[in-house]
């Protein structure tokens, strides 16, 4: 409870607003560009999880998909819990110090993709008849043609897409954090996830 209060500072709320807008705008650009296997619609969610903790990440993910509904695409609303889990996991991996080694961070992305695929397959199968209405349905068709059930085909398609998308998203967040100034990063509640102790040490900063 104490940790929760520390995570949800005013700067966290300001960050969540920007992260939601990034998710929606970048997600729309990627969708319109018709790039296969990536959505990039949860970059902000991963970022918030990493610098403001798992619960802030969870909130960002859930609100992203609910807001899509208000802004014209209700198709994403049923996946809101999964978006929340993505933020939650990014937060956990951040707290475990995985961001500080690039391969662990990308592994975190891969694991997040795996979990996202497992959780979204039942929704895709039950609510959307196993299809996504996008180009990746070619994969679904392939799986169905080779005898997979609707759930298996949705899972197969989801695994390929989500593993790629979440790893790429984690990589993009890694690039973004690397490019942000320490002065800004140190203001976030979980800055220790992304900054080395030496970055926060005033003497060493002054020495530079």
């Amino acid at each position, binding site marked *: 409870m104490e940790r929760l209060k520390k995570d949800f500072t005013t700067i966290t709320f300001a960050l969540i*607003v*920007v992260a939601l*807008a*990034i998710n929606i705008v970048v997600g729309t650009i990627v969708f319109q*560009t018709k*790039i296969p296997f990536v959505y990039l619609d949860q970059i902000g969610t991963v970022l918030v999880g990493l610098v403001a903790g798992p619960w802030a990440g969870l909130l960002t993910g859930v609100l992203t998909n609910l807001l899509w509904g208000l*802004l014209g695409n209700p198709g994403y609303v049923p996946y809101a819990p999964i978006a929340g889990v993505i933020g939650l996991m990014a937060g956990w991996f951040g707290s475990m110090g995985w961001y500080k080694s690039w391969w662990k961070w990308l592994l975190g992305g891969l694991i997040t993709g795996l979990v996202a695929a497992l959780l979204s397959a039942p929704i895709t199968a039950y609510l959307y008849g196993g*299809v996504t209405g996008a180009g990746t349905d070619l994969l679904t068709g392939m799986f169905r043609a080779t005898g997979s059930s609707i759930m298996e085909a949705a899972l197969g398609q989801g695994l390929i897409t989500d593993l790629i998308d979440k790893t790429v998203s984690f990589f993009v967040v890694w690039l973004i954090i690397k490019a*942000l100034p320490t002065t800004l990063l140190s203001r976030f509640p979980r800055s220790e996830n992304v900054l080395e102790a030496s970055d926060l040490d005033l003497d060493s900063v002054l020495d530079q």
Partner: protein
Amino acid sequence: MTANTLYIDQDRGFQRLNPLTKLVISLFLIILALVLPCMWAGYIVFLLAVVPLALWGGILRPLWSALWKIVLPFAISMFVIQGLFWTGGTPVVALGPFSLKAEGLIFATRITGRLLAIMGSFLLVSLGTAPDDLMISLEQRGVPNSITYIILSTIQLVPGLQARSEKIRDAQRARGLETEGNIIQRTRSMLPLVEPLVLGSIIDVDERAIALEARGFSREGDKTFYRTVEDRRWEQTLRWVLAVSALFLILGRILWPFIGRFLGGG
């Protein structure tokens, strides 16, 4: 401020309903479309509930033009994939080496109807509810004002960010970035577009936080409302009735096999 949401401002009965009432009606219709066992359940809910409500709100035309764009891609994929590749299905139409299976077509018809009802119900809320009214009524029901702040300011921020993304794209194009062409070219153009956009907007976060603090955002204690949203007695009753009926529908759906066996045995 609501320019980029779907809401269309009109003074009609449906729009004057309390936002929570619209939310509950929409959720009830979604549950109804999901639990009714009939293959045509979705179409029935859509035609007998979503369409009349949309007519009441004068939003049938925008609802339909948004709805078919959402549902059509799913419907096409479903009819093709589940129609052609239904494992062990009964062939009804032969198409060269392939054939459409009856079971797959029935499945696709059922899910398409459901999607019409579900997405239509969502659209009823977003087309017929002013986002600020929705947030005020949620706040009055105990949702923290930090959450409603997040949603309303994001709605305001999105158009600005979209405009910025177009500027970045133009600037990168002027520097020779290929943003069109084949898949590889389009994929390679993503990072030079996304990175400046994200970095530029995150740099502003600090200033936003200071501006919020200056307006007493983190102040404890009760807050007063500048506006209130009407919540009539009969609407409150209606919401309760719908919530209880939804509960019974779900229970009925779960217990249906047992009831069927009991009736069959008796």
